[in-house]
């Protein structure tokens, strides 16, 4: 192994196996390589079966640095001998490793992921300058446009929904909370399109929604009634065990859309009042405001919406049980059924919730969850027996 053999060794072996005189063998070997060399210099490709192919390959001139002096020198274009080993020789040489085969590794390469994540902030940055331009355009038409945008939004909803799937939230809640993630995705999807008109629409939508949430957030107390209504619907939806009718979905969506539209109208009237007061600052002030709200609202927004609808998020620890959580948050063990109802998509068996399961505990509805009301407890217990019977089936 790893011996360095010379021409001498080759001729020895050849003379032995061919029963040749050493002198003749040497002559032959020398002729062998001389012919290869000569043929190469004649511009031919020399193919020797069982060994491989020799050919001359041109190397372009390139600049380099003299190692000792550090001066720049140019290496002239020249030729080099390329040797492509024969398949049989390759296999012969590789016999020690021939049993090895390429193995597919688990998991995908991480290369693609960071690129995807990068895309979002970049596009947002690109959009920023457009935003200012669009602000100069008349604001009065905004409300109307916004309303038609919400129509458009509804159309795209089924597709977006699947894209926006995120862990714990069930489909029903998804529909309600959808405006938050959607305004992000929508923006990123549409923004690459060059048409100014579309970009304008998308930006309007984004501004409208972010303003809507800004107002929703700041006027939360004022909106409380509507929130409650939403919550009731939500609780109703999740506590009904039969398949929920599609009309109910529509109602809830339309509700939320209506609320948004109202907010948008409010915001518009606000900004109009602003304009009336200071006609000169008209251009700069609203734009600054919207940018502020945009940045301020976005981080708040998601958690905010969740807070309104379902106050507590919990990761199941060791020994945690739904009944205990119910006792802790609702004041009575029987109300675990409502927690289960809100998390049916992540909990397969209410008697055995796997460790680390993220569940959310919905805001208690006083008409259903009231530890002091025996009727509520009775209802919850009735549900409990129903669930248990369903589990046993």
């Amino acid at each position, binding site marked *: 192994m*790893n011996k*360095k053999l010379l021409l001498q060794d080759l001729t020895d072996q050849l003379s032995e196996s061919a029963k*040749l005189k050493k002198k003749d063998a040497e002559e032959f070997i020398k002729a062998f390589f001389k012919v290869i060399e000569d043929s190469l210099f004649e511009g031919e490709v020399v193919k020797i079966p069982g060994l491989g192919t020799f050919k001359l390959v*041109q190397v372009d001139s390139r600049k380099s640095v003299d190692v000792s002096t550090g001066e720049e020198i140019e290496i*002239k274009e020249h030729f080099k001998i390329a040797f492509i*080993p024969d398949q049989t020789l390759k296999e012969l040489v590789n016999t020690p490793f021939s049993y090895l085969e390429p*193995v*597919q*590794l688990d998991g995908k390469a991480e290369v693609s992921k960071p690129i995807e994540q990068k895309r979002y902030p970049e596009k947002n940055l690109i959009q920023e300058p457009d935003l200012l331009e669009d602000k100069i355009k008349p604001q009065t038409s905004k409300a109307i446009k916004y309303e038609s945008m919400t129509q458009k939004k509804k159309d795209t909803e089924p597709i977006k929904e699947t894209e926006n799937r995120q862990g714990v939230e069930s489909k029903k809640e998804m529909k309600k909370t959808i405006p938050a993630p959607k305004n992000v995705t929508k923006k990123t999807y549409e923004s690459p399109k060059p048409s100014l008109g579309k970009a304008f629409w998308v930006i309007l939508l984004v501004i409208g929604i972010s303003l809507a949430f800004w107002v929703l957030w700041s006027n939360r107390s004022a909106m409380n009634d509507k929130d409650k209504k939403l919550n009731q619907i939500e609780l109703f939806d999740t506590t009904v065990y039969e398949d929920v009718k599609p009309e109910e979905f529509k109602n809830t969506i339309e509700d939320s859309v209506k609320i948004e539209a109202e907010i948008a109208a409010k915001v518009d009237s606000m900004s109009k009042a602003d304009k009336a007061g200071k006609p000169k600052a008209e251009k700069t002030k609203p734009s600054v405001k919207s940018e502020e709200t945009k940045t301020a609202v976005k981080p708040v927004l998601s958690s905010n919406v969740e807070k309104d609808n379902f106050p507590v998020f919990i990761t199941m620890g060791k020994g945690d049980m739904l009944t205990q959580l119910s006792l802790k948050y609702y004041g009575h063990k029987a109300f675990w059924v409502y927690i289960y109802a809100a998390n049916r998509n992540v909990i397969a068996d209410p008697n055995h919730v796997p460790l680390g399961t993220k569940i959310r505990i919905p805001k208690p509805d006083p008409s259903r969850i009231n530890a002091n009301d025996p009727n509520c407890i009775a209802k919850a217990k009735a549900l409990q027996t129903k669930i248990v019977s369903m589990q046993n089936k």
Partner: protein
Amino acid sequence: MKNKDFIERIQQNVSTNSERTAEFVEMTTSILAEILSEGDSLAIKGFGTFEVKKKEERISVNPVTGNRWMIPPKLVPNFKTGSIMKEKLKNYSGNE
């Protein structure tokens, strides 16, 4: 260049045993292959060196599917041009 032409040309350069040239060529290549398969290297003065190189294992990613593959190490026959030959090549400027 075909093998037949190659053998013919060797015959022109060899004084004796010209009938058995084809046989000798085959023997020479098989001896060379054997040397290489044992992991030895063979240096021919004025021509170059035949040797075996080990290519390390690596992880390759299919750019389309994103699947990762472990490519095992392998031994590859390699030819290094000798210095005399390199000198000759420097002064050679193609023959087309």
